[in-house]
């Protein structure tokens, strides 16, 4: 059986004129790192669930993409995160939403799917569950970046809500 993995790091108003060749190279390298993280698991005989979690974690940990450390600011100046996962073999699924402290939200989603009778946990309940599962919790400041804060201030000035990467 052949095995394969695909990833995305967001979509939107992404135009070449807004990126230098160096920027593009940085993005491409991180995308390759994410692909390799999942592919290596598949190549070693690992399962698809572990592969997609590994690939997503690379992007969550990067400030380049709108998830985890690259998460954007909500209108209360907090970074709110959501994640979900689904297993095609069992049709089991799990998710966390409106969380502020789970370092890797995709791991929270995975734990909800595999270690709880629930499907979707939100806010404080999701974070308490993650804590009890031994997942790493971090202050919300962990997710703050200057780039995203500057985007947030511009969006506030324009009174707009902006999708990923729509601000150049």
């Amino acid at each position: 059986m052949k095995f394969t993995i695909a990833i995305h790091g967001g979509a939107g108003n992404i135009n070449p004129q807004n990126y230098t060749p160096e920027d593009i190279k940085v993005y491409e390298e991180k995308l390759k790192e994410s692909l390799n993280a999942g592919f290596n698991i598949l190549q070693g005989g690992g399962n698809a669930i572990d592969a997609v979690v590994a690939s997503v974690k690379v992007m969550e940990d990067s400030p380049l993409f709108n998830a985890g450390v690259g998460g954007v600011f909500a209108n209360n100046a907090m970074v709110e995160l959501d994640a979900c996962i689904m297993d095609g073999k069992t049709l089991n699924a799990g998710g966390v939403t409106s969380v502020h402290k789970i370092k890797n939200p995709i791991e929270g989603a995975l734990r909800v799917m595999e270690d709880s009778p629930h499907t979707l946990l939100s806010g404080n309940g999701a974070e308490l569950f993650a804590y009890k599962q031994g997942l790493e919790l971090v202050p919300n400041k962990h997710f703050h970046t200057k780039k995203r804060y500057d985007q947030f201030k511009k969006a506030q000035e324009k009174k707009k809500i902006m999708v990923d990467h729509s601000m150049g």
Partner: protein
Amino acid sequence: TVGAVAMDKKGNLAAATSTGGMTNKFYGRVSDTSIVGAGNYANNKTCAISGTGTGDQFIKTVFAYDISAQMEFASKTLEEAGKISLQKLAEIKGHGGFIGIDRKGNIQMDFNCSGMFRGFKNESENFVAIFKGD
């Protein structure tokens, strides 16, 4: 929003999606596509999907499940179903894209905006791209 879909050596499919939402969104708004059925779905009978874009429209069109349902009940290919679901998204002013993999390991990456950070890898190919036309 970031995401991944995969098929392992046993032919099992999985999808994962993670997001930080939309800049300056109302706090507490369950944001973009990280909702099972909306921007995330996996079913060994059809496909695995992860989406990115304007989340409300992904939720309203049940985007990811819609692709799977077209494949299961209308015998569409992943490519055909994905284009139809993207059209439905556009009709209610949604934009974004998705990555998908079907049960035979075929990859589809499509979007209705100017770019999407994306890539795939298997034993013979290794591809990354950002802009439309790449």
